[in-house]
């Protein structure tokens, strides 16, 4: 639960100004493109000593986006615990990665693709049976009009 909360925190942290150093760019990117400096989504944890420490987590907003309801005291408790975890991981900020080419993902090998051959899952009936609101044909859900 703590890791999921952590995930939510990191993902939802407020906009950061990204300092982009020319040397970290792959040479293929076009120099004619401009870069958007205020990017909510591209979170870049630079090891630049000017980078600020993460803002304290907005726990109520996090809980909202994760659809978890918390009482005010739980919010306080959570806030502190989340803070602790982040600070612990924050030790990684000390590492100088300026000369390291950013990787897309951790593991070395890609691949693991599947053939395009259809297979019917044998036990579909039990999947449907385990849905409380299943009504013979469809899943019955509350009427929702707007995404998030």
């Amino acid at each position: 639960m703590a890791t999921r909360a952590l995930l939510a925190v990191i993902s939802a942290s407020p906009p950061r100004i990204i300092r982009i150093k020319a040397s970290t760019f792959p040479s293929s990117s076009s120099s004619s493109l401009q870069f958007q400096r205020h990017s909510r989504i591209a979170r870049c944890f630079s090891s630049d000593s000017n980078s600020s420490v993460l803002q304290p987590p907005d726990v109520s907003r996090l809980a909202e986006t994760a659809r978890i309801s918390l009482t005010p005291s739980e919010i306080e408790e959570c806030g502190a615990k989340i803070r602790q975890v982040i600070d612990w991981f924050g030790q990684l900020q000390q590492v100088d990665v300026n000369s390291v080419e950013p990787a897309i993902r951790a593991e070395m090998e890609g691949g693991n693709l599947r053939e395009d051959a259809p297979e019917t899952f044998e036990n579909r009936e039990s999947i449907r049976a385990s849905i409380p609101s299943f009504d013979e044909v469809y899943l019955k859900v509350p009427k929702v009009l707007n995404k998030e």
Partner: protein
Amino acid sequence: MSTTLFRTIQPNHFTLLGTALFRTRRTTRHISVRCLNQTATTQEPKPSSQPRTAPKNHGSNKLDEILRDYEAVIGIETHVQLSTSTKAFCSCPNSYGSHPNTSICPVCMGLPGALPVLSSKVVDFGVRLGLALNCELSLKSKFDRKQYFYPDLPKGYQISQFDIPIASGGYVDVDIPLEFGGGHRRFGITRVHMEEDAGKLLHSDSGDYSQVDLNRAGVPLLEIVSEPDMRSGIEAAEYGSEMQRIVRYLGVSNGNMQEGSLRCDVNISIRPIGQAEFGTKVEIKNLNAFSAMSRAIDYEITRQALLYNQGQADQIVTETRLWDEGAQKTVTMRKKEGLADYRYFPEPDLPEVILAQEYVDSIRASLPELPEAKRRRYEDMGLGIQDVLFIANDVSVAEYFDEVISKGADVKSAANWLMSDIAAYLKNEELSINDVKLTPQELAELIAAIKDETISGKIGKQILFELLAKGGTVQGLIKEKDLVQITDPVEIEKMIMKVISESPKQLEQYRSGKTKLQGFFAGQVMKMSKGKANPALLNKILLEKLNAKE
């Protein structure tokens, strides 16, 4: 898993994609203002042989006026449902129209413990489409989770590609149909990425609950995001049509807007001409035909311009509007409170997508001739643009045409037959070119037979119908029905003399000035010869005889 959080997300040119991805107010971009000479989108289009329904331009004069002061900036997001046999991340069958909730398994249902496995076909189609759109491929790309809650999204997130899509930075060339001004346009393609579809949500009539069918959840999609290069409804509709043409040519999707295998969302803003800053962007959804797209854009341009003119430009807010086909207007979906925060992060359950250069090269080598290349080739052959657009529109028709040409048939004749009689037949019988019994070889024969005057053009049209419906050979039919044209002047003269002698009254009238009666005589001779008399020869000799006697 926590280590993924601290990896530096590679800053690259995709962080620039403010407009398409964020659904926010546009930030200022330094783009040179394109001053396109606005070709008039005025005339009511005449019913053409174009398969695409031409949009009606109501209030078109009003639109012209508006376009003198404002420039519309339009971008399109297209979702293409791939025609693979299985879903993107599991082996459930991908077939349209199955009984609800039967194509399901723990993976696409998002049940605990299930893990996604990417289909190789999806990568193949992604590369194919990326290359066809002249994009640069990312030899290494990844998947990300786009997180939000909605009843048709079993996992609570959609597996998509956020900052490193499989293809980016491409373009597409289109031809604007003649009735809308003609001309070439090039529209930029920002990116193409792979993702999965959500299920289908149906709203019950009673209104207090909804229903979900998850057959479609996990079906592979390719999302194509265009640069905001379109400037009118016509251009947008043509872009959409070209997307449809390309995916059908490639065989990656059947591109049916009605079925939902091709979905287009339009992002549109207007700005006073000369202004560099973009205006507030509005998204329009629920477009199920290219004509609707065009009309929706025209409506929206008018709506926004009106607000500008009334000094109420601030009434234009970033929102999603739905196109109401019945009322022919866009209406607000509920206004968004704040931005959607999808909390993207790399999908931990899927490895990188790595493309070997040889793999990409082999796919590039296997691409079919694309619509743009075909259009240029047909133009070089000497066909007019109208013919070019018609034939190249459907890959099956184009292939048929190419085969007919390869048998030696005259290009212009082949085009004419296809566009007129054959097209009419296909329309009436509701068939596709692949269903007709007339083989390309036989069409070439027919054209040759008419060219060397074995049969007349009129006879040709008659047997065409039989050939289309029942097949057979041209030579066979000619023999069977004794259709060989009569080109012997002596024989024709004989018939003419007979007709003249049988119609003294008309002869009298002709001699006294009613020269139009030549047609009567010609008709009689034709009837006598069962349509086989060569018309040119017939009229020549007839004229001689009519004017010479006595």
